[in-house]
């Protein structure tokens, strides 16, 4: 007897791989674990306008690359302009160029962003210590006094920045602070004070998202480096940190918009919030990524829907294996119930059951006539197939005339399977009587119904198609059940007389 160990390792491997690829798909590809999940997305239009001065113009505009948002779709429109988008992931820029620009010009950039929830901006690179700001003579002593006072009260870069911001926004300002604020904007003052103590900080441009807003401008914020992370400070509003309605449009320290050969350059933003299916969004993202991917989404829609049906078969098979190996229900034809269940999915359960019973009953009647003709088996079954087609045609026609649209779906039954079922049942009827026919036919229908209920479940349908790892788990389960040497549920009753009689 060879060792079972490799087998169990193999099954465990299948199980782990199946589960972990599914989780990977959920977490990394953002495929939602539940169907019907919705996500918010933002459609943002940036309009760059400037006045041309009858000479070549080049517009260099920064594009968002914020980890808090994924880019779903982006496009730029600019008739007559040449356009190039730099591929540098950290600092993406669009460059429009034209040989001759005159009069008012408008360039558009449109992007759809999906929040990712990754609000932290982390960096591995230690930023260089900034040059100390040179204060004008009038402000120097006031600034130094304030900075020293706050510095002694702080422990880290972060707490220093926090204290500074609070002090700048304090209602009861000291004379020193009032003097400084009269000569500087609060954001600049904040930045300069940080730089004076060698704390790495930079000005960034962010866009506050708000549904249906138009003609919005970028707002400047300050990021302070602390312990591998850039922390955002909104000095004007005395707020630290950010939420997922703020897009950092430019945060690498460059300008947002450079226009050469034009004047009065300006960028305006308008935005719209949109709700869309989480699944569709993550599929679009996957397509954008061009990543090596086992998904079936690349297939044409028709093949996808075919696969949606095919991928349900493992579920039906699993139900059949369970009911036969663990429970011990007898069916006529091992996997015939799965095929019937597939037909039920098209017809719905009640119509399917009625249709099945009608076809089989009529088929048995026709078959009992055929059996008096002494035909060869093959031609008899062929005759039954043709008759089954007639019956299906007849029922479809009748239900159409009666206006029962459900009846039309009867055509989904696999006819050759039905013909074989009728033949088997008819033989069973002749050999063992009608009771056996009802028992075995009933068992098949019962298993088919259970398989249908499992396969028709919305969650199951969603999972088998979107998380292909599930099929490895099913394979593992089927293999494990193939090793089950225990008692079947029905055997507990069957062998009951043997208990305690020894």
């Amino acid at each position, binding site marked *: *007897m060879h060792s079972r160990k490799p087998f169990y390792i193999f099954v465990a491997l299948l199980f782990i791989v199946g589960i972990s690829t599914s989780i990977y798909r959920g977490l990394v590809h953002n495929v939602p674990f539940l169907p019907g999940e919705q996500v918010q997305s933002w459609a943002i239009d940036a309009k760059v306008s400037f006045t041309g001065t009858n000479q070549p113009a080049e517009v260099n505009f920064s594009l968002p690359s914020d980890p808090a948002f994924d880019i779903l779709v982006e496009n730029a429109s600019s008739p007559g302009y040449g356009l190039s988008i730099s591929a540098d992931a950290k600092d993406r820029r669009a460059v429009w160029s034209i040989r001759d620009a005159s009069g008012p010009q408008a360039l558009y950039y449109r992007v759809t962003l999906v929040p990712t929830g990754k609000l932290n901006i982390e960096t591995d690179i230690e930023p260089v210590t900034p040059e100390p700001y040179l204060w004008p003579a009038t402000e120097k002593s006031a600034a130094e006094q304030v900075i020293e006072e706050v510095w002694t009260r702080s422990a880290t870069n972060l707490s220093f920045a926090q204290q500074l911001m609070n002090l700048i926004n304090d209602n009861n300002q000291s004379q020193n602070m009032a003097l400084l604020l009269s000569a500087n904007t609060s954001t600049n003052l904040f930045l300069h004070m940080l730089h004076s103590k060698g704390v790495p900080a930079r000005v960034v441009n962010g866009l506050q998202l708000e549904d249906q807003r138009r003609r919005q401008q970028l707002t400047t914020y300050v990021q302070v480096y602390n312990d591998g992370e850039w922390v955002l400070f909104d000095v004007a509003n005395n707020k630290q940190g950010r939420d997922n309605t703020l897009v950092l449009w430019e945060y690498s320290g460059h300008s947002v918009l450079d226009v050469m050969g034009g004047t009065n350059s300006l960028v305006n933003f308008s935005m719209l919030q949109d709700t869309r299916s989480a699944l569709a969004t993550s599929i679009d993202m996957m397509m954008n990524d061009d990543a090596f991917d086992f998904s079936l989404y690349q297939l044409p829609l028709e093949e996808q829907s075919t696969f949606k049906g095919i991928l349900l078969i493992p579920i039906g098979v699993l139900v059949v294996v369970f009911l036969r*190996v663990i429970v*011990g229900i007898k069916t006529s034809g091992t996997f015939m119930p799965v095929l019937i269940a597939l037909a039920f999915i098209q017809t719905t359960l009640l119509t399917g059951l009625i249709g099945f019973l009608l076809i089989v009953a009529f088929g048995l009647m026709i078959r009992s006539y055929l*059996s008096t003709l*002494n035909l*060869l*088996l*093959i031609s008899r079954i062929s005759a039954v197939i043709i008759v089954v087609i007639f019956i299906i045609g007849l029922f479809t026609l009748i239900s159409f005339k009666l206006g029962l649209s459900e009846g039309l779906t009867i055509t989904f039954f696999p006819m050759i399977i039905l013909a074989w079922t009728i033949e088997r049942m008819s*033989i069973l009827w002749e*050999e*063992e009587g009608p009771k056996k026919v009802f028992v075995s036919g009933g068992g098949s229908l019962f298993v088919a119904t259970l398989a249908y209920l499992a396969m028709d479940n919305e969650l199951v349908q969603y999972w088998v198609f979107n998380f292909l790892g599930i099929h490895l788990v099913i394979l593992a389960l089927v293999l494990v059940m193939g*090793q*089950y*040497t*225990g*008692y*079947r549920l029905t*055997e*507990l*009753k*069957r*062998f*009951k*007389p*043997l*208990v*305690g*009689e*020894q």
Partner: protein
Amino acid sequence: MKYAWPWELSRSGVLNMNRRNISYIGRYNQRKFYKRVDDKLITKQLALANGIAVPDLIGVVHEQHKIQDIPAMVLDRSGFVIKPAKGSGGKGIMVITKVSNGCYYKANGHEVSHNEIYRHVSNILSGLFSLGGKPDVAIVEGLIEFDPVFEGLSYEGVPDIRLIVFKGFPVMGMLRLSTAASDGKANLHQGAVGVGLDIATGNSLHAVQFDLPSHKHPDTHFPLSDIKVPHWETLLHTASSAYEMCELGYLGTDMVLDKNKGPLLLELNARPGLTIQIANGRGLLPRLKHVEAMKSSAMSVEERVAYAKKHFCSNPIF
């Protein structure tokens, strides 16, 4: 309570379907030897070559147009049996017990028309009864003239003796008696009575019909508690030597007693059913494990039979 707990069954040593398939059939029966038992024609030829008595072979029908030859084949017979060579579970067996004036009658007296025979054989040839629907041949066999010792014991059909042979050791036996419910057939799931037999003596131990204990034959009212199967030693030998013949470790042998020829081997079964345990009122597992645990020294048929008689005897539980 109608259901037993699994551990109760396990304590009683009841062999179940899954375990039979995986641990016994799967492990001890090599695929390549299956056709020796699945094809009854090959079984018959093997048995004849090994000197094991089998029912007369009247003829074999291989093709549709040869079906017309059947009346000629059975001309001077009092009865005959038509069975598919690759049938399973007793399916497709037609027993004609009386032939008179060219008319055929079943055991229950119903006449069987030529058309019915024609259709039946045609079905057999098309593979209706064979596993997987493979084309088959029909075997026409002589009717067994059953031993009068079972007179009044069986209704219509011939009682047959099923022995489970494991690695050549007969481990459990039962007598199957047809009833009105089973239409003269000896299949327990069709309503035949199963009588558990003591391996040592061939005496009845326990009896069931439809898995329920039974003391009398339902039709003949013959008491089932004092049956003693004659030719027991020969039956054990035949069953045991079937192991050498077909080389299957886990095997069911079906035999009948003929008035003139004694025990005849009817067929072998590579997947014998589990109802024999209910008929015996005890589980099969302890005996199978006993044989598995034995030191594997080659034993002759006689030694195996003697060993089985010594170790697998049991007391009646009526």
